[in-house]
Each structure stands twice: as structure tokens, then as C-alpha cells.
């Protein structure tokens, strides 16, 4: 066997090794209920802000403590605690991707990704809503 071939094989083995390394620490997308079953494991949850519950955030007291409630499309609910400053457009978000671990009575969130309607400018509904708001005041 040529040494080039050997090196290619080693390289491919390293690549597979690298990907396996990755597969060890990858996480999963879960619903709130399924996350509750794996308490303490790092998961991703896609949910919505539960507007029926208040958002707790007092930046003067502690800018790094945010607590709110989330509800997912299957109806699962949980309290969420986020030890960081409040994402500025949390209230406006349509969907929240939360990364973190489920604890006994709440979801300890490490990172929040918001999907906000404003960013979806190509969304037709949003454009129409905007058009409505802009023009109805003139009637």
C-alpha cells in the first residue's frame, strides 16, 4: 500500500473520530414533558412564552436573574430561570429556543435564541399586519 493511501486512511479515521467525539456531546431537541423525564441532561426546548404568567426581572436588584414561564406546542409548561440579562425582545418573541437543563421545579436555561416576527420580514403575514397598522390610522 502506498503511504499516501495510509495517510488518507488515517485522515478519514481522524475525521470519523472527530465526528464521534461530537456525537458524544451532542444534545437533543425535546418537548417540555420529555425534558422533565431526563432531569439534569442538557437539552434544547422549543417553546413559547406563557403570557398568562408574569416575567420576573428586576435589573436594579439583579441584572442576571430572569424567570418566566414557557409553554410548548404539546401543552407542556415549565418555569424557566435564566441567569443572565433579559433578552431585549423576549415579550415580542413568537418562539423561544432554550438550551439548558431541567431541574426539579424549573428549567435552568443557559442560552436563549428568540424567533421574533420583526426578523421575519419576508413573512407575508407580518408585512400585511404592518401595512394594516400603517394605513388604518388614516381612515
Amino acid at each position, binding site marked *: 500500500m502506498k503511504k499516501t493511501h495510509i495517510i488518507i486512511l488515517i*485522515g478519514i479515521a481522524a475525521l470519523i473520530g472527530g465526528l464521534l*467525539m461530537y456525537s458524544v456531546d451532542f444534545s437533543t431537541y*425535546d418537548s417540555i414533558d420529555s425534558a422533565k423525564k431526563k432531569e439534569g441532561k442538557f*437539552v434544547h426546548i422549543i417553546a413559547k412564552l406563557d403570557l398568562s404568567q408574569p416575567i420576573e426581572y428586576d435589573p436594579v436588584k439583579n441584572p442576571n436573574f430572569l424567570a418566566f414561564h414557557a409553554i410548548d406546542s404539546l401543552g407542556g409548561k415549565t418555569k424557566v430561570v435564566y441567569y443572565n*440579562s433579559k433578552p*431585549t*425582545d423576549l415579550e415580542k418573541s413568537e418562539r423561544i429556543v432554550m438550551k439548558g437543563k431541567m431541574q426539579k421545579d424549573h428549567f435552568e436555561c443557559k442560552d436563549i435564541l428568540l424567533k421574533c416576527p420583526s426578523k421575519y420580514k*419576508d413573512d407575508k403575514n407580518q*408585512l400585511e399586519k404592518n401595512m394594516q397598522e*400603517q394605513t388604518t390610522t388614516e381612515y
Partner: protein
Amino acid sequence: MNFIGENLFIGKLGHLLVIISWVASLIAAIAFFKASSRKQDAEKDSWLALARGSFLVQVLGIITVFGLIFYICQQHLYEYLYAYKHASKELEFRYLLACIWEGQEGSFLLWAIWHALIGVFFMARYKKQEWQAPVMTVISVAQFFLLMMLLGIYISDIKIGSSPFYLTRNELDAPIFNRPEYLEFIKDGMGLNVLLRNYWMVIHPPVLFLGFASTLIPYAFAYAGIRNRKFGEWVKPAIPWALFAACVLGVGIMMGGKWAYESLSFGGYWAWDPVENASLVPWLILVAGLHTMAVYQATGHSLRASYFFIILSLVFILYSTFLTRTGVLGDTSVHSFTEAGKAINLMIGSFVLAFTLPMLVMFVKHYKEIPAIHKEEESSSREFWMFIGSLVFFLTAMFIIAKTSVPVYNKVFGTSIAPPEDVEFSYNKVVVMVAIVVGLLTAIAQYMKYKHTPGKYLLKKIAFPTLVASLITGLLAIFYPITYYSKGAGFLGALYVALFASIYATVANAMYIWLVIKGNLKQAGASLTHAGFALMLTGMIISSGNKEVISSSLVNGITLPASGKDPMTKQTDNPLENLTLIRQVPTRMSNYEVTYLKDSAGHEKGRKFYKLQFDRKEKGSAGISESFVLQPDVYMMKDNNMSSNPDTKTYLNRDIFTYISYALKDKNVEDTSTFQVTEMHIGDTAFYGNGQFVLNKVVRNPRNQRFQYQEDDAALMADITFISRDSMRYHALPLVEVDSFGLHHVDDTVYAQNLFVRFTGISDDQKVRIGVRETDQMIDFVTVKAYVFPYIVLVWFGIILMAAGFIVSLIRRSGMRGWQGALLLAGVTIALLYMFLFAN
């Protein structure tokens, strides 16, 4: 219904021109293909004439279309959806172009325009050559697919493409469109997304798309090589194009990084975001291909590998377009690209397949015919290690794209794999190994000779650079150690090795220019590029390894820290990294005392700047050694969302990077409470709600940081100390002034105690009247986060040096005239230096 005030002609003209250009690109593709399958004869010439003619029609067509889109945006013709969606009247002029390529259609058009311009240049330069017809076939087919995305026509029920000339009233449903004079009511468009209002939005997309467009040319040459059965000859003319593409694409990617660093608050220039990866991967493969092509030119080895890499570099450009434009990435990317609809997704998919499958089939079919040398490269030869380096780049690219494509597997196989807890580290721990291997290879292989390198020669030449690099790394380790402890000793060790490897590569390649090629700069392209790349790696390792958060909420007790440990990771590094600054209360942050002075409106609507005064005070000395003001800003969007832009103080050896992590949305300036006036002598003490205050002195015509009065003015300033119950002391300097307009008060504030202080006047019995107003309103404050990035300037210098190196190689390989080359090199270097280091 007849609508009033619409300008429909432009839309009709534009739509017609898109269709004409599309048809012309199809004719050009067929005619170039026909021409390429014939030997030199009259028929070939007539096919070529038709092909060139149609291609030029297409070029003129799409340039006019671009002009028309510019016109509808610039004139705010909101009857067109594109203008309504992307333009607005408050938009500054410089963002007009940016708002065109904000949209899907505009960015495809931009890409097509680069193809068109490259095509025209190509036809002029390779007029008589056999490469023209097959290469232009590929460009024309690419144009066919790109322009199809802009068609916006229906064939029976299937919508093909999305036109930039759609009318607002046809696309949106709103009652307003029942009125003929609806246009009068549409006051303004949506405008460019505020997150994109940045100077890089004007420059970065065109550069990146030029990189995409120029990657097509080496690919087209590879096709031409097979098609003309000139299996090896295509490499020589393709190398300058590959150099150009690698240069432009590389610079474009790092421009995106600089943009992220300047205006996104994730605190860095690279986050392994899918959109970033998607353009890095083709670059890595292209660079791999560039090296194997150089090997082929020098030795005749690695031709098949060159085909493979060059084909895949374009395939991955298209695949990344697929990833970022079809919405398949969904929740994993901060760059919120939107789902463009099934129709567009299918077309992008077919674009990818059309450039992947036929070419790979051709490659496999003719694989045996592609010449290869069966004698193996020697282990002491440069080409052997260059090939290994290319392989490492390629496998790294595969690793990155495999990880980035996880959402695709999830879609295809219905799995629910999500990114790991620490996404960046999951890449970094692999890439740091790559950096080590690549660093060592670029350092050592540069000193090897093609075919065979005598061991003594290599040792003699490489000894000195090795010594210098070891010394530098050793000194760094002692005097400026890397403090990235959070991932354990193993990773820290790997970082040190990578640091050595990248310094080694920088030093060895820089010295190569003097030691081996004796300062002949024309030959120095590769060395410069390598040195630049390695310098960039060095900068990345140092700036990320020693990145430091200097804002801590622990210093002013405003927060109530739950525990000293990060509640999430249970590590000792503190998550309380946000510092709340109360207006006008100096607060300690690392070596600085930071004061939030005031906020001010920008000239764009909804933009607010926060003026933060930084005074550098070394511990143990009283004086201020340095003062500067940073003005991070916050954009209030139309829907009341906020977006934060950092501001950075740049030194040669570090950047102080600060952004607002929380700000009050609107302050209540109305206040119902009134001043409580106390009459007092100097030295008297009086009480207020939360403590007492002392009138220290009264100064006539004060001259200090706050006031600058002359001798003949009539101003009195009171110097008052407030002592709160928790025995904190605050200073207030209210002032009263008599000028030609009468009595004039300059109040002072003690935000920490919610106090407004006024020098009300002097009483008849020569007592000083001090008014104190206590409010129960929310005090004014901002919460900031601040980082120090040490030596990040090396990253920007590195990319500029790398680009310059590519240009030097390009000049030599393309046989450009001396003065042309010098002009190009100087132009590019100066432009990049300005863009990366001085603009903004």
C-alpha cells in the same frame, strides 16, 4: 380598478428584461456548448458569435434590471413590494445599495452580475483560445439558474422564481388596496433591517458574492479540461482564477467576522454559526485545490485530486447557498434567513444538483484518462507534504460541514439531534489540532524542495526560524501566559502547541523570503500568504485564549449574587458579568472607573447612544492616566424591540469592547415632586429623606471639568456632600448664574440617591438656599458588558497580509505587467487596511 399614482412602466420593463436575460442566458449556454463540441471551422465561429451576442444581451439586461431596482428603492415607489419591504425614507443614502442585497432576489441578482462581469472579462481575455467556449458554457448555465430565481412567472400552476417587481397590492391582502388612491396612505416602507445597518452591509455581501462567482471559474476550467480532453492543460490558466477566488472569498469571510465583531453583541468575530461555516468550508476546499494545482504544475502529481477539490469547492458554495437560503437551518443560526417558500427551495436544490451530479459523473467516467504518475512522491519532497496539508484542509472542511448539516439529517431522517452544550468548544477542540498540523506543515514544507530535499539542507535552513519561533513562544509563555483554564489542562496544552505552531509558521515563512528567495518579492506570494494566515491564527489563539470579561456586577453591590459560582456550569468563573451603571456614579471596572454620563439620540430614528466615560486609574495611584469615551448604542426598532451595538476602544495590543446589555426603554421625565429648599451657611448640615448633606463651600465662577467660567461672569456653584444612611458619600455641584437673560439654574443630580439638587439662590440674610428634590421615579441606568480582546489586531493584519500574498502570487501566475501588478497590490492593500483598521 384604476389605481392612482402608480408607476407601472418600470415594473413591466424590469420583468420583461429579466425574462429576456434568462432566455438569452439559455441561448448562450446552448450556443457555447455547440461551439465547444466543434473543431475550428466556420460553424464553430457562427455558434460562437451567437453565444457571445446572447451573453452580452443578458449582461446588459441584468445590469439594467439592477438599475431599475435601485431606482424603485431610491424613489420609494412603494407600489412595488421590493421597495416597500427593503427601502424607507429615513434610510441613509449609503444603505440604498445594502437594502437591495438584503432581499433574496437582490442578492441573487448581485451574484449574477458578478458572473456577467467576469464572463465579459473572460471573453475579452481568452478571445482566441479554446477555453472560451466550454468555460462560458458553465457561466451561462449558472446564469440560467440564477436568473430563474428572479423570473416570477407561472407555468400552469407552478410559480417559477420570485420577481423583484411584484406589486404590493397583488402580494399583500389589506383593505387599503380597495381604494384607488391607496398609495397616498403608504407613508413609508419597512426599510433595511436595523440589525443590518452597518457599513459592512454595504461592502461584505458584494465581496463575498464576488468570491462565490469567481470560484465558478476554476470549476469551469476543470470542466473544460475534460470536455476538450486536455486533462492537464487547464490547470495553468485556472490557477490565477483560483488564487483570485481564494483571496476574495477569504477576505469576504473575514469581513463578515469583523462585522460580527463590531456590531453583534455575542462578543467575538467567529461563533461557528452555520452561515459562517457555510462560506468557510468552500474556502478550505478551494485552498486545498490550489495547493494540489501548484503541485501538479511543479511535478505532475495530484492532478486527480485537483479535479476533485476544485469541483467540490463550487459544489459546497452551492450547498451552502442551499443551507442558508432555504430555511433548513431554522433554529440553529443567529442569522435569521427566512424560508423563501417551496418553489424557491426546489429551484435552489436543482441549481445545486445541476452543478454537482453531471460534473461528478464526468469526473468518474474520465477518471482513468486523467494522467497520474504512479511512482510515489518521496517523503522528503515538498509535494508530498503539500498534499497532506491539502488533505487536512479537506477533512477539516468535511468535519465542519458534517456538523453544520445536522438540521438536514434531522429533516431527512426525522431525528432530533441538537447542537452540543458548548457549540464553540465542540469545534475548537478539533480545530486546534488542525491548527497545530497546518502550522507545522506550512512552516517546514515551505523549506522543502520539490521531488527531493536533502536532509542537511533542510536542517540548515530551518534551524534558525525554529529557534526564533521557540524563543518567542517561550517568552510569551513566561511573560504573557494564556489563561484559558476553563477547559482543563489538556486543552490549554493544545493551545500552547497551536500557539507555537502558528508562530513557527509566521516566522518561518517571513524568514523564507530573506533566507531562501533572497528578498525577491515577486516570488514571495506563497510565503506572504502563509505568514498572513499563520499570523491570523496566532491572533485568534491569543485574543480568544486571553479574552477577559471586565464587567462584573459584584463591584457595586447593586446585584445580589446568588453564589460565587456559575449556577449553570458550577465553575468558578462568574456569570454575573453584567455591570449596572447608575447615571453619573463612577463605578470600578478592571483598571477603569466607568461613568455613564448621558444618552443621546443619533441621527437615525430610534437610535440611542450611551456615553460612557472611561478613566484609567491604576490601583494604588490617585491620578487618572487616561480618559476616553465609548458610545455603544441601542436601536429601538419600530416594533419596540431593541438591538445593541458595541463600541470598541482599540489599542495596538488590545481592544476594550463594550455593549449595552440592558437599557431602560423610556424614562419618565415628568415628575410631580418639588424642591425642598433649605437655607444654610457654609459648613451647615441639613437632612434629606435618606441621610444628611453638608454645604462645603460656594465657588465663584468655577473652572473645573463641568464648568468653564471666566472672571467677569456671574456664576455661583455650591459644593455639597451627601451622606446617605449607609454612609456612602456623593458629591453634587449645582450652580446658579446671572446672565443677560436673567437667573439660570444648572441642577445637579445624585442618581444613586434619586436626588436632584438646585442652587436656588441667596437669602436676604446671606444664607445659601439649596433645593433638594427626592423622586420615587426609577433612576436612570444602563447595564453593560465589557470584554478585553488582547492583540486582536493581529487577526486583521493577518488577513490583509494573506490577501496581499494571494495578489503577489496572482500577479506572477497570470503574467501581469509589472506596473499593473504593483497598482493592484497597492490598491488592494490600502483599501483593506483602511476598511479593517481605520473605517468605523
